[in-house]
């Protein structure tokens, strides 16, 4: 009995949670006439690719895709490098104020772009990075969750590994590249996946930094075309949304365990 109640509960919840996704994807395949007809149809009656064609042609989606990919890939490479090195330095280095600095990193977990929007904009502007894709990359390089994860990971590398290499006469630089870096493969994988997804999904930073259409990222463009005078037809907007969630779905399905485990530890999205 309890088993059936559980099953029914799960099915109802699943339907509710997938309702927005299903209805949007289904509607993205409706033609202009059908999407604005009343009452709404649950399945597209005359499936059409009109929305997709409009999104790709009229909305310059490929330009936004190129911008987004550039930002996501470059930011991910720099984030991974600085976080792996930074985690190593903060976990294994000796210096005055080590504990304070480590605590500071934990505190930054709570300072997201939404909280410091205005000063962030002023600093990016001062650096001359407004309407520049680097203005979307550099401020995003330091991610609190990434840094925190890297420090935790590096703490678990046994000191003996490092010490024995030192005794053998290896330089600090060589120790990092020959021992620490190869040991960090799981960390690098996790950081790359997270960083790419964060940058792909980001909205706040592009909204602050970019106001030229040719530099829009996908998510910024998706938000802007909804508010435009005259309005973009809903089937185009939904086709656009559907296309932008596909890559995150693929990454998610491929690396599910990273998301389900990793983020629970970090707990916050950045």
């Amino acid at each position, binding site marked *: 009995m309890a088993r059936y109640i559980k099953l029914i509960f799960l099915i109802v919840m699943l339907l509710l949670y997938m309702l927005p996704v299903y209805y949007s994807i289904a509607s993205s395949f409706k033609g202009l006439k059908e*999407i604005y007809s009343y009452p709404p149809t649950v399945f597209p009656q005359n499936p059409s690719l009109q929305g997709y064609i409009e999104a790709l042609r009229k909305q310059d989606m490929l330009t936004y895709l190129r911008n987004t990919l550039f930002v996501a890939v470059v930011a991910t490479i720099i984030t991974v490098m600085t976080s792996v*090195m930074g985690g190593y330095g903060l976990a294994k*280095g*000796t210096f005055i104020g080590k504990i304070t600095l480590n605590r500071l990193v934990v505190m930054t977990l709570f*300072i997201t772009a939404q909280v410091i929007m205005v*000063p962030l904009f002023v600093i990016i502007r001062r650096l001359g990075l407004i309407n520049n894709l680097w203005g979307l990359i550099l401020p995003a390089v330091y991610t609190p969750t990434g840094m925190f994860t890297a420090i935790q990971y590096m703490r678990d590398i046994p000191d003996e590994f490092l010490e024995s290499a030192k005794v053998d006469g290896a330089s600090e630089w060589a120790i990092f590249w020959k021992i620490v870096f190869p040991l960090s493969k799981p960390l690098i994988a996790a950081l790359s996946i997270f960083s790419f997804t964060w940058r792909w999904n980001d909205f706040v930073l592009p909204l602050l930094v970019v106001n030229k259409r040719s530099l829009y990222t996908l998510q910024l463009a998706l938000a802007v075309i909804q508010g435009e005078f005259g309005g973009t037809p809903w089937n185009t907007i939904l086709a656009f949304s559907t296309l932008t969630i596909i890559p995150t779905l693929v990454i998610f399905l491929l690396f599910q365990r990273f998301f389900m485990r990793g983020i629970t530890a970090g707990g916050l999205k950045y």
Partner: protein
Amino acid sequence: MKKLINSRFLFAVPALVFLFIFVLLPVFSVFVMSFFSWDLLSPPKFTGWDNFLRLLEDKWFWNSIWVSIKLLMMTVPMCFFVPLALAVCLYKETTFSKILRAFFYWPYMMPAVAGTTMFKWLLSYDLGLLNHIIKSAGFSPVPWLLKPTPALFAISLLRTWGMTGLLMMMFITGLQSVPEEFHEAARVDGANRWQTFWYVTFPLLKNTNLLVLTTAIAHVFRDFAGVYVLTGGGPGYSTMVTPLYIYNTAFTQWRIGYAYAMSVVFLLVSFVIAVVTLRVRER
């Protein structure tokens, strides 16, 4: 005798430079610049406590805080009990529960703008599927995004939808750490499933519960993209949450100094949430 500083620390320098320029400097500048009047074009003018005095009288600022509190009161209970119920059903490591978990987690890792857009379409007054279902069931359609209270509730549903996956995974981690013996001991004493859960398992989840609550509060409190796309703060100012109000003050009215002063308050509240969360986590 250990050296006070060694060269290994140098590996942290690039990360620390980014941390300094894009996190610490902004936080620090918030406190300094909140004492200036500035429109970005002319040089900032020192005005002492003026911004803060104005803040005390700005009814829209206090409205934004009140909106956030209302949102929290609507959202946090849903964000607690729905993920808890799902976690109780799905905490065992079976293929079935792993597949279902993925579905509930998916909205959390979708781009916020795309997810919100889909929600907006579902909630559309005359073209949305939800009102169509409500009408087919014989009720009158809900003006989701057109009236203040339904609009707040819509944001609350959106946040719950988006956060369930994360919070459910926190509960699952918590539930899996409760040793099976506790359940068995309670069963032997003749407790039914419901009693076992409420009197044995649930109290053991105390830390998880607190972690879920603080995480939910932090997410709701600083949500920007969701509100921006779903309602834009409207109708009127009814869903104008604090970050959105700060954004509008700074980037549509260009009252930068005043926006800094509001950021001080926002930052302090975030800081309080942070400290409470960290306390919980360290336990």
